[in-house]
């Protein structure tokens, strides 16, 4: 095999910083490999990607040491534009990297820059759009595309130069499970059919593991793991350094202290059967709770639309309950969230909070939107929590900061914090108002494992103190872990509203709703015990009687 990328002793320090962001990186990637790069937010992944793309010199002159070779040629002797012909980079938010107005123009942009004739550009554009599944959309406005289509367009816009190495920075962080699967299959096709070497940065290792034979793990600017992904679980399980969100089956192996650490269901089933005696009974708890939010016959139609975005919606949220709202993109989830947050006026139906009209109590509803950065407006974390909120004591804020794990950062500028810290700051600002209902839109998108666990802890703590949580998510594992109840929307209608452990056992319903089946359901099926939707339930079922392990 030929070397596509060779990095030797690479270190980088941004101007004005004492710490090196990259420390003595050594990495070899062969032509045709598919490599997954993982690590906590701020560990240096993006800086490494910029170094490979030759862009470090363009973003502020820091100190760069070491060498990067692309196809055995030193990258330092090439300009970023020349490297761009060899290395295609797709960034995390596709719409930020799109420049033109229409799909065809966007894809053809790189070839125009090479001065190629229009006839050739048109032909190449058609071919690339076909490859990424956007054929016939040449004239479509880029703003009229869905999120998944935009990601494919961003991919097409770099594929047109026929790069040898494709780098993707968190490409699926905002996609639903079906979208993730389709996109990864597309990458696999490009790798197999066109021989493109692929390097992907992603936190959702649990969903991507089966597509990537090799994992590179980074921590604090260093590569701490570089080997087969199948061996990673044994080596890395339990370490929090690289924020790896491992497959749930691997987490179960660790929690049950099994002799194997593998996402392979058959292997784990055998290991459990060998080491544990499984309990065939599965008890379910039903807690009686008072109703907090009541939605009665809610329908909503946008002025520009002929069809209803929400059609005759009826549901309740009880006090202390955590409810997950799931379904395809465009099912009506955001419309419902906006109605509940009072951002959109209810036209048909009624909404009650504590038996009073919701509009009267709208200040008792906290809503954390998908892009928390837009909600940051103060100069310090402490100020964010107390902004426009006189009713809260200093002691409460200090306690909240500690729970948010932001006490040491209380005087820091919020927008300069890490992604997870920024999200927790906004969540803290919501919690400081002591809302009765907390609405969360995709609260875990793009978060590494550590940050994810911290957010989950905060949500569970809030619900335990009597608060109700209503959150939108595509993350089946998250919903399976924390939701008491799940509501599934499809085409503006509720197609399912039941306890989480009932919904997640209904495979047909999940597939019909574009969701994946929780790994624990599949595993417990193999174990021949009643279906469990999360690790806690599996542990309760298999942990009652331990064979030879006390």
């Amino acid at each position, binding site marked *: 095999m030929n070397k596509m990328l060779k990095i030797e002793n690479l270190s980088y320090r941004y101007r004005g910083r004492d710490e090196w962001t990259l420390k003595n990186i050594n990495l070899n990637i062969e032509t045709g490999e598919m490599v997954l790069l993982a690590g906590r937010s701020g560990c240096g992944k993006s800086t490494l990607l910029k170094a490979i793309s030759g862009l470090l010199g*363009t973003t502020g002159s820091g100190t760069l040491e070491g060498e990067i070779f692309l196809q055995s040629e030193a990258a330092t002797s090439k300009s970023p*534009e020349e490297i761009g012909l060899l290395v295609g980079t797709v960034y995390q938010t596709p719409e930020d990297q799109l420049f033109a107005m229409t799909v065809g123009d966007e894809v053809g942009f790189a070839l125009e820059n090479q001065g190629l004739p229009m006839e050739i550009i048109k032909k190449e554009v058609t071919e690339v759009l076909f490859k990424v599944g956007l054929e016939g959309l040449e004239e479509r406005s880029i703003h009229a595309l869905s999120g998944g289509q935009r990601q494919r367009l961003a991919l097409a816009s*770099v594929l047109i130069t026929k790069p040898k190495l494709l780098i993707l920075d968190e490409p699926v962080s905002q996609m639903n499970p079906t979208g993730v699967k389709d996109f990864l299959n597309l990458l696999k096709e490009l790798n197999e059919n066109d021989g493109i070497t692929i390097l992907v940065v992603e936190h959702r290792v649990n969903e991507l593991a089966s597509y990537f034979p090799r994992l590179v793990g980074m921590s604090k600017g260093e590569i701490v793991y570089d080997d087969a992904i199948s061996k990673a679980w044994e080596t890395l399980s339990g370490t929090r350094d690289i924020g790896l969100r491992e497959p749930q089956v691997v987490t179960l192996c660790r929690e049950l202290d099994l002799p194997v650490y593998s996402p392979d269901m058959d292997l784990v089933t055998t290991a459990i059967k060998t080491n544990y005696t499984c309990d065939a009974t599965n008890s379910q708890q039903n807690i009686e709770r008072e109703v907090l939010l009541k939605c009665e016959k809610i329908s909503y139609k946008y002025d520009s639309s002929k069809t209803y975005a929400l059609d005759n919606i009826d549901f309740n949220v009880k006090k202390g309950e955590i409810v997950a709202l799931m379904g395809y993109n465009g099912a009506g989830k955001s419309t419902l969230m906006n109605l509940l947050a009072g951002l959109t006026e209810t036209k048909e139906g009624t909404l009650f909070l504590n038996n009073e009209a919701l509009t009267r109590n709208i200040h008792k509803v906290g809503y954390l939107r998908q892009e928390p950065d837009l909600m940051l407006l103060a100069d310090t974390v402490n100020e964010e929590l107390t902004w426009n909120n006189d009713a809260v004591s200093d002691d409460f804020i200090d306690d909240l900061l500690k729970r948010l794990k932001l006490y040491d950062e209380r005087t820091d500028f919020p927008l300069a914090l890490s992604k997870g810290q920024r999200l927790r700051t906004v969540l803290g600002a919501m919690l400081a108002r002591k809302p009765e209902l907390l609405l969360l839109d995709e609260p875990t998108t793009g978060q590494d494992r550590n940050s994810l666990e911290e957010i989950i802890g905060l949500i569970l703590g809030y619900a335990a103190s009597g608060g109700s949580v209503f959150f939108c998510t595509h993350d089946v594992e998250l919903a399976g872990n924390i939701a008491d109840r799940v509501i599934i929307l499809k085409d503006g209608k509720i197609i399912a509203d039941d306890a989480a452990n009932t919904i997640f056992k209904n495979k047909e319903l999940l597939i019909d709703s574009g969701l994946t089946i929780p790994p624990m359901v599949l595993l417990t099926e193999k174990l021949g015990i009643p279906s469990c939707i999360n690790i806690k339930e599996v542990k309760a079922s298999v942990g009652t009687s331990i064979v030879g392990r006390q």
Partner: protein
Amino acid sequence: MSVRQLWEGSDSAKWLKELDGKTKLIVLFSFAILTIVIDNPRTLFILFTASIGLHLVGKTSLQKLQVLALLLLLGLWGSMFSQALFFSQTPRTPLFTIISPGLPILGTITEGLFVYKEGLIYGAVQGLRSATMLSIGLLVCWSSDPRQLLKALVSWKMIPQVAFMLVTAIRFLPVLVAEASEVLVALRLRSNTKIGRNSIIRHLPYIAKPLLARCLRRAQTLALSVVSRGFFLDNSSKYGYKWSNTEKIFSWTLILLVVLISSFKLVYIASEYGFYYGDLRIIYDWTKIYL
């Protein structure tokens, strides 16, 4: 129509969208020079009407026309009203009195507040200038792909980095407006009162920081993306394309007209400083009446 669509250049007439970037920029520059050179309110009004006429023949959508009307009226009204009140040149003719100089306290402090006729006219002229530019500027924004303008600027040998910065503003216009509305929604959600949750005005002062932070991030990603797609490649044949003869003739005619009008104005101003030539009397008269 969403806020973002309102600022997108995708619903204009096909002929306007397909006009070459060079032609559009020449029209824009011509209007810019003419609005500076011309002082006559009637001629300025004709120029302004022409810019509105271009919107109509270019099939600017009704929603966009409503936005344009609002911006124009606010600008015109603000300019005329402020100049009418605070016009300081002489002669000035009070049309009516708001605060009489004889009024106790206020009259003494302000020495009287009047609406001046000359101020109104001066304000109208200044307002028409900015209104014309706003109208023609939005026409170009609403009917152009950023690449179209980029091609034009690069083909005029403008430094690619500068050209990119200029057109990025147009690329980001719809995004910025949509983002501003998103930020306002987010800020409303930070309020813990019923009134605060529905108010927009009280959150406006806080909009800058999150919006600026987002724009910086977006701009950086876009810059990295275009760099790696070879935008700054030194390629002399880049954007080698044909500028249609009809557009070329139209553009040159427009340039000549602007040069001619500017020359008339220069000659007229020179005459006021003593450089008077009897043979040019017809130009002096024409300029005085129409320009």
